[in-house]
């Protein structure tokens, strides 16, 4: 058993067998807002923050989370930027089916924390790894710009 910090709380979890952080979050901690998409780090649905950096939890060994601060979609609203992203997402009516949106929100929050006024290129570079089958990309871009005041 290992202790990992998720959304500011310490949890004792089973990280054996190289299990990915995603399954520890979902199956052991019941934080099911983080989604399983492709399982190959290709779609971004499972994005969480590891010390503020977006990370694909489906390929991130849970054992590697020891000693780091993990933030999930359940905790991102505790940050000022996270709150703004959530509000903008609601105001712009960004989600359609919603499956990818926790990953999109996590990627956007990291982008805006790092760069409060991102250009379209900055948005492309930061968000290109988060795939939306519904094609909500235009609204995602609008929401990010609305937070940045662009």
């Amino acid at each position: 058993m290992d202790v990992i910090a998720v959304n500011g709380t310490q949890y004792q979890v089973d990280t054996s067998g190289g299990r990915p952080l995603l399954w520890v979050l979902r199956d052991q901690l019941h934080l099911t807002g983080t989604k399983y998409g492709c399982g190959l780090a290709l779609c971004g649905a499972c994005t969480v923050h590891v010390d503020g950096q977006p990370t694909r939890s489906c390929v991130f060994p849970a054992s590697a989370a020891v000693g780091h601060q993990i933030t999930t979609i359940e905790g991102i609203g505790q940050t000022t930027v996270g709150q703004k992203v959530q509000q903008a997402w609601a105001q712009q009516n960004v989600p359609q089916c919603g499956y990818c949106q926790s990953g999109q929100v996590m990627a956007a929050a990291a982008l805006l924390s790092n760069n409060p006024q991102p250009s379209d290129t900055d948005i492309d570079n930061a968000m290109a790894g988060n795939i939306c089958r519904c094609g909500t990309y235009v609204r995602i871009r609008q929401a990010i710009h609305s937070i940045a005041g662009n």
Partner: protein
Amino acid sequence: MALGLLGACAGAAADSPLFEPIASVLQHPRCLNCHTVTDYPRQGDARVRHLQSVIRGADGHGAPTLQCAACHQTANTGDGFVPGAGDWHLAPLSMGWEGLSAAEICAAIQDPTRNGGRTLDQVLQHMETSPLVLWAWSPGTGRDPPPVAQDVFVQDLQAWAAAGAPC
């Protein structure tokens, strides 16, 4: 068209027969995919542009909030599909080898302005011990290793260096 040519492995023979087997490794996709001359990496044996429009970034580690380490961990995933090794990143642009002949790569890796300021000994050390280089021989599922075995590659490097590193 130009990018397409860059995507192909040059595979040109070196003037020095001692460097030829080394060139066959350095011109392999496992090396060239991250020793690019573009602002993005390539992937796979077909050397396609990296999915998700991944970019090089300021320090070769990707965009500020879409870093290589977002997906590439310190080891391949259990199923081998997502490759990983410590400090996954692109070589600096100055170390781009795409489009170079074997003899040109041979010269480049000995040129401190194009090898990160390394001495020949440090170049050999990088090629013999760097986790990223060693990963090439354990590339996971669906990726071929270089055509020369790693231990033979080290012997080839030593023989080449002992002969004065001819190109």
